[in-house]
């Protein structure tokens, strides 16, 4: 079974530029999560999708971050414009269902450096 795929693996941009990350979850997984993990901290949930609908985006900085999951499969997370404090690893995870206690499968993440 293929795992969660993320790209790119690394990205360096200047502040005020825009950037997009892509995630392909495990086939058949209904729930998709995006997390931000700053060095030395645990992952912080940014947004959760159930199929192609948003379940929770309460911690997504909506003035600069946006995410979509078209057709309930792949997802993209965009930052525009980026700030220095956005430097972090962006993790995508998927699980078969939401809220019933199934494990989440994580991708390797995209390491973003904003200079």
């Amino acid at each position, binding site marked *: 079974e293929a795992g*969660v795929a993320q790209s790119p693996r690394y990205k360096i941009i200047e502040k005020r530029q825009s950037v997009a990350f892509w995630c392909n979850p495990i086939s058949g997984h209904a729930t998709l*999560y995006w*997390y931000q993990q700053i060095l*030395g*901290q*645990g*992952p*912080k*949930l940014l947004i*959760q999708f159930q199929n192609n609908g948003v379940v*929770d985006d309460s911690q997504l900085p909506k003035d600069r971050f946006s995410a979509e999951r078209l057709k309930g499969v792949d997802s993209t997370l965009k930052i525009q414009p980026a700030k220095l404090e956005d430097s972090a690893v962006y*993790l995508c*995870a998927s*699980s078969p269902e*939401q*809220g019933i*206690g*199934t*494990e*989440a*499968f*994580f*991708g*390797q*993440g995209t390491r973003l450096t904003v200079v």
Partner: protein
Amino acid sequence: SQKIEQNSEALNIQEGKTATLTCNYTNYSPAYLQWYRQDPGRGPVFLLLIRENEKEKRKERLKVTFDTTLKQSLFHITASQPADSATYLCALEELSFGAGTTVTVRA
């Protein structure tokens, strides 16, 4: 909002000993709590899930307890091995992760 804290940032133990990690939380009553392992440069990997009506869960050399009155979970690695060296994360459902405890097992 919910808050989750894990004990000391680092834990150094001798091979063969038991590592005990603590996870405390406030302002939330999770239906379940999860533990993950994270190696440098990798995404977290699921280890164990324990539900609010369960007191203890075991998987091979791992054991998790869950005390909803104390709002605390303990994670034990018995007969530790150098390969167990990693950062271990506690999570309230999928919503909130602790900062993790880095375990180093000395041969």
